[in-house]
């Protein structure tokens, strides 16, 4: 998703006004960066903040980051000149550090002052923490999901690829598949309820 606030003046204006379409474009362009930061942790100076294995905890933090970043004050505070990603990452890091401190976990001073600059490119410093270990239940579920998809129509497989693998919106999917919104909703329901029934038949998980 392209959403360059430094190049697209109309997008920047809509973003500053808090227009949903503009905020959604910015969100979709950056949400993966924020989630990745929480999953893998980050380094700042000599300090390293460990990533979170719990996806829901990552999502909760991600939600709070965007609530903070999309507040009127933060929108007005973004100058539209520097890339938005590093600006957002600073908000994420500072929020996380605040949470760690509030929970009583020690945070080194080196990580406690994520400042405004200077080089956007070196802000991320995401540590290369290993992926959480995939457990056996997950493997069985993945195998069953693949088996389920293999039995489905070409249309449903296409839908799953666009909607869940490529993570397109329902609107983008209906445009790509040239079907109605109602059809897209039906396909989504078929995919989810079909997989649920398929897993239940096999006593999974």
């Amino acid at each position: 998703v392209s959403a360059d606030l430094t190049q697209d003046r109309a997008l920047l204006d809509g973003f500053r006004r808090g227009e949903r379409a503009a905020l959604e474009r910015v969100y979709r362009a950056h949400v993966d960066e924020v989630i990745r930061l929480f999953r893998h942790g980050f380094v700042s100076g000599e300090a390293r903040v460990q990533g979170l294995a719990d996806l829901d905890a990552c999502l909760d933090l991600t939600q709070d980051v965007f609530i903070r970043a999309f507040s009127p004050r933060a929108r007005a505070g973004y100058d539209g000149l520097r890339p938005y990603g590093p600006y957002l990452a600073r908000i994420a890091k500072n929020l996380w550090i605040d949470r760690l401190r509030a929970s009583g976990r020690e945070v080194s001073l080196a990580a406690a002052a994520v400042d405004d600059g200077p080089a956007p490119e070196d802000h991320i410093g995401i540590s290369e923490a290993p992926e959480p270990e995939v457990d056996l239940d997950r493997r069985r579920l993945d195998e069953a999901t693949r088996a389920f998809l293999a039995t489905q129509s070409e249309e449903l497989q296409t839908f799953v690829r666009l909607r869940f693998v490529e993570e397109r919106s329902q609107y983008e999917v209906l445009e790509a598949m040239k079907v109605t919104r109602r059809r897209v909703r039906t396909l989504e329901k078929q995919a989810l309820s079909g997989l649920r029934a398929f897993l239940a038949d096999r006593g999974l998980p």
Partner: protein
Amino acid sequence: MSEGLSDRELARLLSGRDSPSALDKEAVFERVMAETPARRRRRWAAFAVPLAAAAAVVLAVLAVPREAAFGPKGAGLANLELSCVRGEAPAPCAPGATLVFDVTPPAERPYFAAFARRPDGAIVWYRPAPGERTARASGVLEAGVHLGPEHPPGRYAVFGVFTAEPMARAELRAALGDELASNDRVTVVRRPLEVREGRP
């Protein structure tokens, strides 16, 4: 049992990745939007400029050096956006159009004043009206400014001034000084405005 898997968990399986799914992210976005106030939407029909507001556009020629610059100090998170409308529709800023202010005051300085410096160096006051003090302002202001004969075509500099207390024009002049810049009493936001040729 698998009946316990939510749609979001099933979507993660369908994605083939052990990471948040499209449904997860869309759910987060909806919760973010529920907590995100949009700026007040423009209601074009409400921009019929009251006569009193139009009358408040008074020329006041001050001894302002044209090279006076506004520094960033104290600008904080204040913001001022300008646009023009004609009737209910967006329009070029030209004679006959209405200049609309979209104001974001800093939290500690909610009172708003505005004026412009014309191409010839003259100052055109927008608010407060003569003899009045500034009022709190935020969002798109209901009363715009009719661009009449006092706005000949050319490049203007429009200044939004934010203060902690209500101020009259004389107090604002004193607080701004010759620098017309942010200081310990005022926060100043400067925006360019080009008034184009056109018929009223």
